[in-house]
C-alpha cells in the first residue's frame, strides 16, 4: 500500500509537469479565450488512460503499475479544476457560446479518446 502511494506521487509529479509545460506551450501558440492547451492535455490524457486500461487491465491486476501510470500520471496529467475555472471565466466575460463549446467539446473528446485508446489495445469496441 505504501508502494502504491509512492507510485501515485511519482506518476502525479511527472504528469503534472508534463501538463504544465504542454498547456503553456500550446496556449502561447494559440492565444484564444478557449484554452486549447487544457483541451489537448485532457483529450491526450484520456486517450493514454484508455491505452493503459486496455494494456494493464483493471487497477486490481497490476496495482503498482496502475497506480504509477493510470492514477498517478494520467490522473494528474488531466484536470477538471482548470477546465471549470476556464469555462466559468469564458461565461463571465460574456463568451457563453465558447463556454458551452468548451464543455461539450471536452466531454465528447474525452469519451472519444478513451474509446479510441481501448480499441487500439483490444480493450473493447
Amino acid at each position, binding site marked *: 500500500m505504501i508502494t502504491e502511494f509512492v507510485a501515485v*506521487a511519482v506518476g502525479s509529479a511527472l504528469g*503534472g*509537469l508534463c501538463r504544465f509545460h504542454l498547456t503553456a506551450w500550446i496556449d502561447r501558440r494559440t492565444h484564444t479565450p478557449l484554452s486549447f492547451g487544457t483541451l489537448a492535455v485532457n483529450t491526450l490524457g484520456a486517450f493514454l488512460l484508455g491505452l493503459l486500461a486496455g494494456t494493464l487491465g483493471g487497477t486490481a491486476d497490476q496495482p503498482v503499475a496502475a497506480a504509477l501510470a493510470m492514477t498517478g500520471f494520467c490522473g494528474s496529467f*488531466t484536470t477538471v479544476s*482548470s477546465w*471549470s*475555472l476556464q469555462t*466559468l471565466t469564458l461565461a463571465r466575460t460574456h463568451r457563453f457560446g465558447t463556454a458551452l463549446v468548451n464543455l461539450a467539446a*471536452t466531454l465528447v473528446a474525452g469519451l472519444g479518446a478513451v474509446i479510441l485508446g481501448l480499441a487500439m489495445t483490444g480493450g473493447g469496441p
Partner: protein
Amino acid sequence: MNQGITSLWVALGTALGGILRYGVDRFMVAGATFPWSTLVVNTLGSLLIGWVAARATTPSSRFAHADIHAFLVPGVCAGFTTFSVFSHETLILLRSGAVAAGIANMTVTVVLMLAATALGLAAGRRNMTDHTD
C-alpha cells in the same frame, strides 16, 4: 521568475494532489458502483481553484506569488482533480448499460464543478475586504 523553481513547485503540488485523490479513492465508499470519489475530488478541487483565483487577483496577496500559485493551481488543484479518470469511469457506466448513471455522472460533474468554482470565487473575494494575507 525562475522556470526551474516554478516547475519544482508544480511537481510538488501535483504529487500532493495526486496522493490526496488516491487517498480519497482508497478510503471512500469501497465497492460503490457509482464513481463518487472522483465526483468528490473534482468538486473540491474546483472549489479550491476558484478561491485561490479570487485571492490571487490582489497583487499583495501571498496567493499572487508565482511559486505559491504554481504549487496550488497547476499543482494541488489540477493534480487532485482528474478528467481522464472521470471520462473512463463515465464510459464504463455507459458500456455496462447504466446509461442514465453515465449521463448523470457527466451532468452532475459539470454542474457541481462550475457551482463549486463560482462559490470559491465568491468566498475568496468576500474575505479579501476583511484582511489581507
